[in-house]
């Protein structure tokens, strides 16, 4: 009898994947300098490093610049309707738990028209990785105010400036029952962007990553103070969270040891306004997952399905 020889012979280890395996034939049509490029690269690197099989990987999106991402991935994609990426992804994961499900959504798609789905998706805690590209504007439709636009921002729909303070996606997510993973990344620190997406991918449950993303076309200066001054960034480091490389640690010296298990401190960090926190704010692997609770325990053979349908229909037989 042999041990694991078969596994080695049959496994995927001999497959060599590069970033190019995950690039589709469609070239990204985002503007030059758009932060979405960095997010796309980080995802493709993750797929390569995790050796995700393209046919076992699913990218679901709604509408917006961010939601174009599935077109640029060599994997399965579902470019859905506005605000409905999460219910689509939930259905996919329930039906095909073997798939790696990613959701790319934007601040308008997720926090405005899709807000209802967003809240319940957090509570359902279905195992998927949600990347919310937050550039604070509707860019695809040429600059309308979004729920996360800074107060006073002049846009096509608010020529006198927006009236309300922005919604905080981190605080909102952390306030929902059953929340299990919340992180924040920025597109201009690729190393942490990759690490955070990787942590989210490995989380057992619904992982929500807000990615602050620059829009050079319609919000060219929005993040300049933070991009140009690393001291304005707060990097959250912890053995159960983000690990900084020595090189990066020299550039971003403003760091805090934050235990992702501490939800109270996570909420305080989420509320910071002057400084942008980057890292894993909260993580709890013990939260029940709806897809796990409702996972079918048996196999639905054709005979079984037929018998079930017959049984149900028999109830209405006159």
């Amino acid at each position, binding site marked *: *009898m042999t041990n694991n020889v*078969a596994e080695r*012979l049959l496994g*995927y280890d001999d497959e060599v994947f590069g*970033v190019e395996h995950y690039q589709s034939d469609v070239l990204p049509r985002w503007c*030059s300098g758009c932060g979405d490029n960095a997010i796309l*690269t980080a995802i493709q690197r993750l797929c390569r490093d995790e050796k995700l099989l393209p046919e076992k990987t699913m990218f679901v999106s709604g509408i917006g610049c961010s939601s174009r991402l599935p077109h640029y991935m060599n994997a399965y994609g579902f470019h859905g309707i506005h605000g409905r990426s999460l219910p689509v992804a939930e259905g996919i994961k329930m039906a095909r738990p073997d798939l790696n499900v990613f959701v790319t959504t934007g601040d308008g798609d997720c926090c405005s028209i899709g807000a209802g789905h967003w809240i319940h998706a957090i509570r359902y805690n279905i195992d998927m990785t949600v990347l919310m590209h937050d550039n604070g504007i509707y860019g695809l439709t040429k600059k309308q105010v979004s729920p996360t636009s800074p107060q006073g921002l002049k846009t096509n729909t608010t020529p006198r400036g927006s009236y309300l303070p922005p919604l905080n996606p981190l605080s909102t997510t952390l306030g929902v029952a059953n929340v299990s993973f919340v992180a924040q990344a920025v597109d201009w620190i690729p190393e942490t962007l990759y690490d955070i997406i990787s942590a989210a991918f490995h989380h057992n449950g619904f992982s929500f990553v807000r990615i602050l993303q620059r829009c050079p076309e319609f919000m060219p200066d929005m993040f300049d103070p933070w991009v*140009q001054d690393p001291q304005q960034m707060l990097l959250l480091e912890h053995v159960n969270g983000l690990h900084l490389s020595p090189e990066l640690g020299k550039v971003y010296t403003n760091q805090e040891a934050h235990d992702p298990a501490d939800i109270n401190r996570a909420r305080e960090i989420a509320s910071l306004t002057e400084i942008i926190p980057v890292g894993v704010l909260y993580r709890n692997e013990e939260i029940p997952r709806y897809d796990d609770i409702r996972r079918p325990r048996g196999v639905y053979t054709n005979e079984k399905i037929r018998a079930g349908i017959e049984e149900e229909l028999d109830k209405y037989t006159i």
Partner: protein
Amino acid sequence: MKSATVRKLKTKNRQTPDQSLLTNTVPAALAARRDLGNLRYDYPLILTSDARATDQDFIFTLSGVIDQILQEIAPPGGTGEQLRSHILRLEQEIRTLVQHGISGSLIELWELAAANLIGAADNSDSLEHSIDEARNALPVDGKIGGGEIVDCDGDMPARIMALACSAVRETRAENFRLRVNRLIVRLTDILHADYTKSDKARTSDSLKRSVGTGYEQVFDFDEMSRILSFGAARDLLSKSRRQRIENTLKALESQKFFALTPTPDSSIYEYEFDSCAVAVKEFQHRMLELVALIKAIHIADLEIANIYKESKHDSYFDRFDETSISTQDLAMFPPYLVYLDDEHLQDTGLSEILAILSSSTPIKILFQTNTILSSLNDPEGPFSTGFHSAQLATMAIGINSAYVLQSGNAGLFRLRGQIIGGLNFEGPALFSIFSGSSATANVPPYLMSAAAAEARAFPTFIFNPAAGPDWASRFRIEDNPQADMPWPVHHQEYQDQDILRISEDVAFTVADFAACDERYAGYFDKLPENQDQDDQVSLAGFLEEENEETDSSIPFVSIVDENNILHRILVTDRLVQATRRYASAWRSIQELGGIGNSHAENLISRERENWQRENRPQPAAKPDTLEISEISVEETTNTVEEAPDVAAEPEPAEPDPADETSSDDAYIETLRCTTCNECTQINNRMFAYNDNMQAFIADPDAGTFKEMVEAAESCQVCIIHPGVPRNQDEADLPELLVRAEDFA
């Protein structure tokens, strides 16, 4: 060791063995436990009759079930006291019924015991109410309420093993069904998907059948067929793949190792045998089918994941045979169980047993021992095989790769987890169980088997090769009473002839065990009437004093007769020898189990001597020398403390990659690149992406300094540093150098 002369003296007056010596007696240490009906212990057991029982819940104790019910219904404190009292009486009544040989399910005996108690009670209302309340809390399913309630007897080891084996089989069957049915469904889906893409599926007749009769008038199936055929996909399964999937499906569906539905299926293989040879033969006979099935499962996994590559996997599966099977593969299938007992050692059984235990087959052997100590009446006399059968487990440990569990019948419930562990162990296993069943015993099998463990005649141990690499992790003896002692010692009190309380600690030896059974009466004798009581010494004490020349002492054990009168009986030489032999065997087991290991003790002793020698006080020194010595030590200490902390010196900082680069050379802080495409769009030969899609300067001479400066200005995160122009003749250099200063 005492001389042969002394031993002769002690037995010289012995007549023909007095068979009445042990009639209706028990060893003094067991006198208080003689009537088990009054005790609350882990028998009787409830053996679940639920075929779906898993390896976690196949066996229960009556007292455990009653405790659970009381915890549920009886409030703590005085309020629940009456309820507790009533239900504990019921439990005792059930136990008594079982001891009287009444069998049935727990519910049946519950009802019978309840009727007995209520019928005999003066005020039965409250008792009836309590019993009803408890009855409502009793699970009535096959697992507990419907389970058979049984006492400890000679059949118990086989029954428990059969149940445990069935539970393990059921657990594996459930996992197997889930896995294989899923594979069948998914493979069928692949074939079905292929069919729907075929021309055959798009014929009008086929389309008509798929719509059904309800709406067949609504559609034009000819037209539907024409349209669907027009855009039909042509990526159908290759012939070889289809053939492979069909063969795999056939292998999965026709296997006989498990039923694919929970319903009983007579074509499924048997896994329980009463002969080693037959079990081995069956295992080998099924090997070809097993190999084919495991191969099919692996192929199915690959096909479903769509990663079967003929160039790579065909040759592997062509050579697939029993050497390709892993232990994880085998763990999917049921263990084989062989039932054996003492008699198998009389013929060729031993070699067959050892052959199995030396193999890597999942064959488990239950070896039931009914006799540990041969009686003087045995035809084999002093060379009988009784001792060998009791030592089978110790021999099996030497093989080093088989799971071995030895226990008395009484310990089986407590070791149920270890029994399951042995059945789940990837290789062979031996369960050596002493039943305690004897027609001539004065105590029930439960006490007999417990006494064998106490007396070290049949110690409890488990050897699990999977538990770790060394004896400390593999071998376990802590289930024995007072495992660190040569014999367990019990405190005993009784009254002497003058009604004075006598209190003493008494060891329980092999002779005490022998005193439980009348067939061993020949090993004992009456003490000589003129024997001085000061010369009488307990057997344990006698063995301890063996090296001392106390020739006049005579070993005895204490027994209690049916009138609770304490007697001393002489232990004969043969039993002394047997006891010595068992004591020696137990000593070896202790050493293997880490208790009093002689190697360790010798090492400790040597190290202690070394330490004492090295730290022996020096002869008193002269006062001035002593002062110098003290000063010297102090200075040395200070020197050490004040010495520069070399380790604390900061290590040289790792050179920054940017520092290494000359300021004259252009460079990019690649790690910070956000892949925004700005630079590559300016010049994709000068700027390129690495494997992580982050930019670097591929060729500084592939463009102009102007392009370098423009790229630096366009970069969203300002990580491009243009350096100095490589071509000093480039146009507008003074202006470009000024612009480049911001990115130096």
